[in-house]
Every structure is written in structure tokens, then in C-alpha cells.
């Protein structure tokens, strides 16, 4: 069932409840994280200061592809404040020069034979202070021998192209994998008989998550016990700990990974970076704590990028606009090492959901992934494991179809939606959409936008030669990885643990395996426990980001916290409540079956005066006197939750732009977003997540791109070159929601952290292309900067890659 009632009234804000109106459970609640953060009392990795701590800095390659002939570190070692200078050769002697990536490839910690992307790690210096460490980098002499870099993704498989990964035995080309999904023959049959076929090459350029806090770590190895404590900017502390144990041979119980406050992640803080390993090695060798904190350039040029797909898209339809099939051929640029962080069976992530929100007859995707001389990565920037690319593909090609059919893009989408009675719906590529009701969300967005009026305004403006565009995107996501029968990363199943302990006085502590990077877990998880137990959120402490003090689980990315750990939290609370009910039956001298639960207390059915609160029960569970027979004392439980399926949030987005015909500057005038993420735990936080993702969409559509010159030099190496939207490029977002609960999630919730980042780029691009319709433009590739829009208007649009 879908409900569309408006959000609760707001107080000039997104609806944070005042102190007097705090919800017991779900609702708008001010965040528990905020009091420390607004005082500057957050505790981020770079805030960690330990006695005797040394500082590590990394020397990086100036070339994209070059043989390392020699390294002379003597001058650096002679620097009075330098403690150690380590090269790849030094690491190789310990068997530590290479490490596995999250995709079963290997990546150099420090280059030994050759460098494979500009700014690759070549050596590191450990010194007494930050500045001296960087001074000493200048004193290291490296002699490189140039090799032609492989930059153009379309030429990677040409016979004369240099082989990047000659470290891999028997490797004779730059190929990584081929992958396909769907039914090729059935799809061809539909295309061969279709009234209308539209083709377009659609490029999703390389972009970067660029969280405000860069990546870094402080490693502290205690010499006698061998205990390693690692403070680290990681979204997945448990997965990292296990990988360190498997790779470095450190016993897992001697590793404690602490992810303190994290200044944004967006997938950038999922991989294990060479810098983390360098810090651990340095502390191990030197016996003192070592801090590595990258600067902004290092973050942009060497850490997990996103996208970089060249997609040939085709759509087949009847002349009335019934979509029949979608087919795509994708060339994926994975950089120099395959560092994609996706479940093992899904080398292209969840790109398979490219059939979108539409009920079609056939679909097929073929993909080839290749190495280039660029930084590794690929799955990041709130992409939901490549669903950003999938949604962009389908929402762009549907608009191309609307253009050819001369149909309204809203009408075309409404005509093709999967219908509510078809859920659970199995797509032609095998994804089982759990629940959905698309038309109400679409209609609500159109109502909020005043869609008909906007089209009238556009028609009038076109008469006057003004450029106004209206862009629509309707997305369905697949988030909450995932069922362990299908999903693992490096062999680790994607289930999540959760522990709940109720103290004698009725206060509680819940321990999570996931880790917030700004999503507000300390608030929402307290609300989930509160909803299930009736304990007020302020009485519930949420512990996360510390492997010694939380149960195992795979961390926070791919919008998986609420779908997986949120379910674990609800179920662990129910487990505690079941025990509380038995204790209550003893206290009330009634049978368990005769008790009724009223958020926070059990009472005897038909005799509401006879009741005990959860706090009374907690004291009884720990107190004197007998408990019902067979029951142990205490009131706590733990669980490991394995989801049945992913959850499928969806949304309807409408963007309105104006373009100055004289300068080609695009102004995003309005952006309307209607999201459905099922049951809402904290609407204020959901709205906030949506807002952030919408800004990402404006950024990617209009300014963000990591590009390279023909020599493989990265051209997006600072925030002067890699442009991120500010308050001036973004409008005041207009948001709404519908609620279609997930049928398999204990509280009906779906993930939402990435919905807007996934859904908004096509809305912005569709709006800009729509504005350019008078120029006969059907497609233009991101980023649509003023110069690229101008070229498009002049008929000189070129792909960004």
C-alpha cells in the first residue's frame, strides 16, 4: 500500500521536533551527533594525537606510465627530522609491495617495477612532523623511463597498445572482464520487429566523491603485545580488519580498527588504500604511532573515483510509445588496477537494473572492462553499485525516444511503468523488485512542479527565443546488499550483526556493524530501538565504528545501513522484547498470551491497570528474586541479519533550467524531488540525504569531471579544477514523498542515502537537453559546462571522453 500524506508540519526547518515533542520511535528528531559537531568537538582521524606520533608522507609518480630505473633516497634519509624512507623494493623484501583489491585483483602498495598512473605511490617518508615529511619527499631522486600511456579507453584493446599489467603472469592485453546480462537473442528479436529504434552513445564521465575530509589513518602497533590499533577513515571497519588479517598475516584479534567521526564518505572510504598499509608498516617497523593524512590533490588523483562508462544505448518501442526492449554495450574504464568495490558475483555492480522502472519485453547488456593508465576505483560517489550509470542510461535513452516520438516525456514514462499489482516484479535481467507504486509518485512530482503550467511557460518562452528546459527522471534503485547466498566481498557474506543490551535502569546500548559518515546513525538507530522497545531515544547509546566493541558486519555503503543493519536492529529489539514479555508475565502473574504490548509497557488484556514498563522489566531481569522458569537473567540479545532480498526505493524528479542564449550559462531554477523509501524512520534526516544527493546531481551534470590529457596527466587534481557546486549553483530543493513499505524488511524501510545522487543527474541533463530542443539537440554528454553547452548550441558537441 502506498500512502501520500504530507510530511508533518515544519518549523522553518525540515521538521526537527522540539525538545518537548521528541518522538518515542520514528519521527522528526534532532540528531544526537550534533551537539559535539557544532562545538568543534567531533573526533576525526586527523584529530588523533598520540605521544611520540610520527608523520608519513607519500612520494607519487609524476608520470602515468613509466619504468622505475632507480631510486636514490640517501639525501632524504639524511634529513635531520626523517626517521625512515621506504621504497617499493623495501616492501617487496617483506612481501608487502602488493595488496589485494576488493575485486580479487592486486594493487601496488608502492611501485616496484613501474608506475601505472600519474600520482601512483612510489615511496614514503616518516618524519617527526608533517612539514619535514613533505620536505624530505623533495629529496628523493627517482629516475623514470617513459612508456606511452594508455589513456583513450576506446584504444585499450588495439594490438599495438602497451600492456599496462605486465605484472600479471601471461597478460597480453589490457582486458579485465567481459560480462553480460539478459537475453541477447530475445532482445534482438524484439529490436528486429520494432516500429521505432533509437540509438545513442551515452557517456558517464569519471567523477570523484571528494568528501570534505580526505582519507587518512593513524596506526599504532604496540611492540610487546603486537596489538595494532588503526584509526582510519573507513566506511567498513570490520571488512578492513579482516582483510588486514588475511593479507598481512596479522592475527585478527590483535587488530582493532576504529573509524571515528568521518567527514563524508560517499564510497570514497570503502577501499583499502596504499597509505593505510604504509602507515601500518611504518608503525610496525619503527615501533611508534604513525599518522598519514592525504591532502586534497592526493584524494582527487589517487583514491576511488566513480563511473567512467561509455554506453551504447538502444531502445525499441511501438509507434504509440510502448517500450519493448533496451539493449546496451558498455565499455568500462577501471583504471590501472581493478579496485572496484562490488559483491564478487557482480563485476559491474548492480548495473543490471538498467531496465529501470518500466515493464518491457526484453533486455540485454554486454560489457567489457579494461585497464587504463588512470587511478583505480569505479564504484563510489553514492552510486549504489553502478545503479547511477544504469539509471542515467535508461532515463536518458527514454528521453531520446520521447524526442523521436514527439511525445511528452512524462506521458511516455507513465505509459510504461511497472504496475502496482505486478510487484514483486522480476525484471528481464532477473532483479526482483520488492514493492513499488510509481504513478502516484510521478503525479505528485508533477503536481508540485505545476507541470502543465511549466510546459505552457516553456512554449511561450520558446516563441520569444528564450531557452527553458524541463527534465524528468524516474528511478528505481536496488539497495541493501545483500542476501549472503548471492553477495559477498572477498568471500565475506554481506550480513550484518547487531547487539542490544538493556541496563538495569532501563537505559540501553546498541552496537552496530555499520558506520555513519554523516548519515546520522546515532539518531536513527536509537529511533529504531525506541520504536520497538518504547525506550526514549535519548536513553539509548549507539556504538559503532570500533571493531573491538561492535559485532561483525560489512559496513556502510550502497545505501545498505537501513535495509540490512536497520533490520538487524529492529529484530534484535524484538528478541529482547520477547524475553521482556516472559519476564512481564511472571511479574504480572498472567500468561504470556494474555499480555498486550503498548510501546514501552506490557499490560494484561482486559485489565490495563495491571502493567509493567520496559524499565520495570529491565530491573527485574537484573534484580533479586526468581525469573520465570528456564529464563536466564539479563536483558540483552544479539543477531546476525541476512536479508531476503534487496530493497527497491524509487522516486520522481523534475528539474527546471534556464539557459542564457548569449553565454550558455545554465541556471537550475527549480528542482522537485518525490522519493519513496518505504517506512520513514526520521523524515528530517531522509530529506537531508535527498538534498545532498540532488546537489551531487547538479555537480555531475554541470561541472564535475576527472579528465586526463593525452599524456595521462590528471586534470582534476584540485578543487580549482574539479568543480563542486556551491550554494550559488543549487536551488532551494522542493521535496515530497510517498510511502510504499518494503514487504520483506521488518519495519518496511528501504535505503535512501544514494537515491538522489542516482536519480538527479538525468533530470538535470534532460532539462538542459530539453532547453536546447530548438537547436535540434537530442543528446549532450555531461558535464554540461557553459563551454560545452555553447559548443552544443553551435552544433559542435563532442563527447567528454
Amino acid at each position, binding site marked *: 500500500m502506498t500512502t501520500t500524506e504530507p510530511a508533518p508540519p515544519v518549523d522553518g526547518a525540515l521538521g*526537527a521536533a522540539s525538545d518537548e515533542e521528541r518522538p518515542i520511535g520514528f519521527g522528526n528528531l534532532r540528531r544526537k551527533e550534533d551537539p559535539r559537531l557544532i562545538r568543534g568537538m567531533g573526533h576525526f582521524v586527523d584529530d588523533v594525537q598520540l605521544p611520540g606520533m610520527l608523520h608519513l608522507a607519500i612520494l607519487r609518480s609524476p608520470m602515468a606510465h613509466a619504468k622505475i630505473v632507480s631510486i636514490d633516497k640517501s639525501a632524504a634519509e639524511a634529513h635531520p627530522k626523517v626517521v625512515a624512507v621506504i621504497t617499493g623494493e623495501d616492501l617487496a623484501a617483506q612481501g608487502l609491495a602488493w595488496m589485494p583489491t576488493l575485486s580479487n585483483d592486486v594493487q601496488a602498495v608502492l611501485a616496484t617495477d613501474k608506475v601505472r598512473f600519474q600520482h601512483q605511490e612510489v615511496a614514503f617518508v616518516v618524519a617527526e612532523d608533517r*612539514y619535514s615529511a613533505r620536505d624530505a619527499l623533495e629529496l628523493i631522486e627517482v629516475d623514470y623511463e617513459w612508456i606511452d600511456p594508455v589513456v583513450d579507453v576506446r584504444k585499450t584493446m588495439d594490438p599495438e597498445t602497451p600492456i599496462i599489467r605486465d605484472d600479471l603472469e601471461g597478460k597480453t592485453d589490457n582486458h579485465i572482464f567481459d560480462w553480460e546480462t539478459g537475453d541477447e537473442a530475445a532482445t534482438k528479436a524484439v529490436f528486429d520487429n520494432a516500429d521505432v529504434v533509437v540509438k545513442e552513445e551515452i557517456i558517464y564521465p569519471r567523477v570523484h566523491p571528494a568528501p*570534505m575530509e580526505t582519507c587518512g589513518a593513524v596506526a599504532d602497533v604496540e611492540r610487546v603485545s603486537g596489538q595494532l590499533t588503526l584509526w582510519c577513515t573507513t566506511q567498513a571497519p570490520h571488512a578492513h580488519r579482516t582483510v588486514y588479517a588475511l593479507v598481512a598475516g596479522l592475527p585478527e584479534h590483535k587488530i582493532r580498527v576504529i573509524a571515528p567521526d568521518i567527514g563524508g564518505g560517499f564510497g570514497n572510504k570503502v577501499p583499502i588504500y596504499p597509505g593505510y598499509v604504509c602507515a601500518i608498516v611504518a608503525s610496525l617497523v619503527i615501533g611508534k604511532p604513525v599518522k598519514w593524512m592525504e591532502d586534497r*590533490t592526493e584524494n582527487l588523483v589517487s583514491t576511488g573515483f566513480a563511473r567512467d562508462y561509455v554506453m551504447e544505448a538502444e531502445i525499441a518501442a511501438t509507434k504509440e510509445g510502448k517500450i519493448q526492449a533496451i539493449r546496451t554495450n558498455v565499455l568500462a574504464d577501471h583504471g590501472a588496477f581493478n579496485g572496484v568495490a562490488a559483491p564478487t558475483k557482480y563485476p559491474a555492480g548492480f548495473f543490471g537494473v538498467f531496465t529501470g522502472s518500466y515493464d518491457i519485453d526484453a533486455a540485454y547488456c554486454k560489457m567489457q572492462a579494461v585497464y587504463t593508465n588512470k587511478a583505480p576505483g569505479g564504484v563510489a560517489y553514492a552510486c549504489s553499485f553502478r545503479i547511477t550509470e544504469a539509471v542515467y542510461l535508461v532515463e536518458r535513452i527514454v528521453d531520446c525516444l520521447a524526442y523521436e516520438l514527439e511525445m511528452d516525456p512524462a506521458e511516455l514514462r507513465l505509459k510504461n511503468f511497472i504496475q502496482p499489482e505486478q510487484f514483486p516484479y522480476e525484471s528481464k535481467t532477473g532483479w526482483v523488485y520488492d514493492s513499488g507504486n510509481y504513478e502516484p509518485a510521478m503525479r505528485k512530482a508533477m503536481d508540485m512542479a505545476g507541470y502543465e503550467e511549466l510546459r505552457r511557460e516553456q512554449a511561450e518562452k520558446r516563441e520569444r527565443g528564450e531557452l527553458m528546459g524541463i527534465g524528468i527522471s524516474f528511478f528505481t534503485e536496488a539497495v541493501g546488499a545483500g542476501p549472503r547466498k548471492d553477495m559477498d566481498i572477498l568471500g565475506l557474506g554481506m550480513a550484518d550483526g547487531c547487539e542490544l543490551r538493556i541496563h538495569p535502569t532501563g537505559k540501553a546500548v546498541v552496537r552496530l556493524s555499520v558506520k555513519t559518515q*554523516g548519515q546520522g546513525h546515532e539518531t536513527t538507530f536509537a529511533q529504531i530501538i525506541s520504536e520497538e522497545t518504547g525506550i526514549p531515544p535519548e536513553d539509548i547509546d549507539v556504538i559503532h565504528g570500533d571493531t573491538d566493541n561492535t559485532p561483525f558486519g560489512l559496513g556502510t555503503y550502497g545505501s545498505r545501513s537501513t535495509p540490512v543493519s536497520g533490520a538487524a536492529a529492529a529484530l534484535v529489539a524484538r528478541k529482547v522484547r520477547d524475553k521482556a514479555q516472559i519476564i512481564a508475565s511472571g511479574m504480572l502473574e498472567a500468561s504470556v498470551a494474555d499480555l498486550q504490548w503498548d510501546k514501552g509497557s506490557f499490560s494484561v488484556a482486559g485489565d490495563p491497570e495491571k502493567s509493567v514498563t520496559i524499565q520495570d522489566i529491565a530491573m527485574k531481569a537484573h534484580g533479586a528474586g526468581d525469573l520465570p522458569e528456564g529464563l536466564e537473567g539479563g536483558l540483552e540479545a544479539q543477531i546476525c541479519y541476512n536479508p531476503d532480498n534487496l530493497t527497491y526505493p524509487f522516486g520522481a524528479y523534475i528539474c527546471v533550467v534556464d539557459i542564457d542564449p548569449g553565454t550558455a550559462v545554465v541556471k537550475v531554477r527549480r528542482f522537485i524531488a518525490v522519493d519513496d523509501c518505504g517506512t520513514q524512520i526520521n523524515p528530517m534526516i531522509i530529506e537531508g540525504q535527498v538534498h545532498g544527493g540532488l546537489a551531487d546531481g547538479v555537480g555531475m551534470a554541470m561541472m564535475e569531471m576527472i579528465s586526463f590529457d593525452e599524456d595521462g596527466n590528471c586534470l582534476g587534481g584540485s*578543487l580549482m579544477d574539479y568543480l563542486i557546486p556551491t550554494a550559488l549553483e543549487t536551488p532551494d530543493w522542493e521535496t515530497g514523498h510517498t510511502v510504499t513499505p518494503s514487504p520483506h524488511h521488518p519495519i518496511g524501510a528501504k535505503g535512501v542515502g544514494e537515491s538522489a545522487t542516482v536519480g538527479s543527474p538525468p533530470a538535470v541533463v534532460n532539462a538542459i537537453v530539453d532547453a536546447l530542443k530548438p537547436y535540434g539537440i537530442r543528446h549532450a554528454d555531461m558535464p554540461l559546462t557553459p563551454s560545452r553547452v555553447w559548443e552544443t548550441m553551435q552544433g559542435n558537441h563532442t563527447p567528454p571522453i
Partner: protein
Amino acid sequence: MQVNMTINGAEVSEEIEPRHLLVHFLRDQVGLTGTHWGCDTSNCGTCVVLIDGEPVKSCTTLAAMAGGHEVTTVEGLEQDGVLDPVQEGFMQCHGLQCGFCTPGMMLTARALLNNNPNPSEGVIREAISGQICRCTGYSTIVRSIQWAANHESAVTIGSSS
């Protein structure tokens, strides 16, 4: 070299290298880690502090340049246990998520409201346009500052007047 300045009302006198950046001086030497380091190029603004009431990017300011001046960091916004309305506004209006850009945003907001107690939305957006937030999409930051403007008491923190 010796540098003397007032930080959040307290006299500070420290030995520094002439090349030390103010952001590192505040964080590593004075121990005020609420000021963050984000980009080195004056683009992101997470390092913003007030010098004599004016927002300044401390990643491109030498500590020596702050000598003889009054520096206000995020730690100086709360006075005698009372939050600045800007801090209160950010909590009320969900103006922060990861909290990394927040100190700089709040200090710019404080300087703005000291000079213009009732700024329009456009003026607020202009004022924070030298700063980047990756989480909020800015609308809630704008609302937070509007909330502060509507709940302003006689706060003059960081004001040079």
C-alpha cells in the same frame, strides 16, 4: 619565530616556523581541532576562522599573519555554556550531516549576521559561496542561518567592534 595572538579571547604566545599555516598552528600546536583542513587552495572553506571578525581561510594564511590579531574558532562560539544562535540554528534545521564543513560555515554565518542581522536568502547564499558542503545541498544551511537571524540575541562573538 615568536607569534602572539588572541584566540577565543585568550592570549596565546608560541614559537613557530615562519612557514606554518594558521590551520596547522591552530590544530597541531594550540590543540583546537574544530578547525578543519580540507583543500589547501582556499576553495572548500572548512578551515574558515574569524580574524578580527572577518572570515579567513586558515589553510592559506600563515600563522604569523595572525600575529597581533584576534582569532575566533568554532570553539569560541559557545560562551559561558550558552550556544551561539548559529550553532542552535544548525541543530534545529539539520544544517549539518558529517559535520566537517560545519565549523567554517558557522563562523562565516556569524560574521555575516554581525554585519547584517537580517540577510535575504540570496545574501546568505553569496556569503557561504566560498565554502563547500558535500552532504546537505545547502538549503538546510541557509535555513539554519535564517533561524539564527530570527533568534538573534545580543551576540557579537568575533566582532571587531
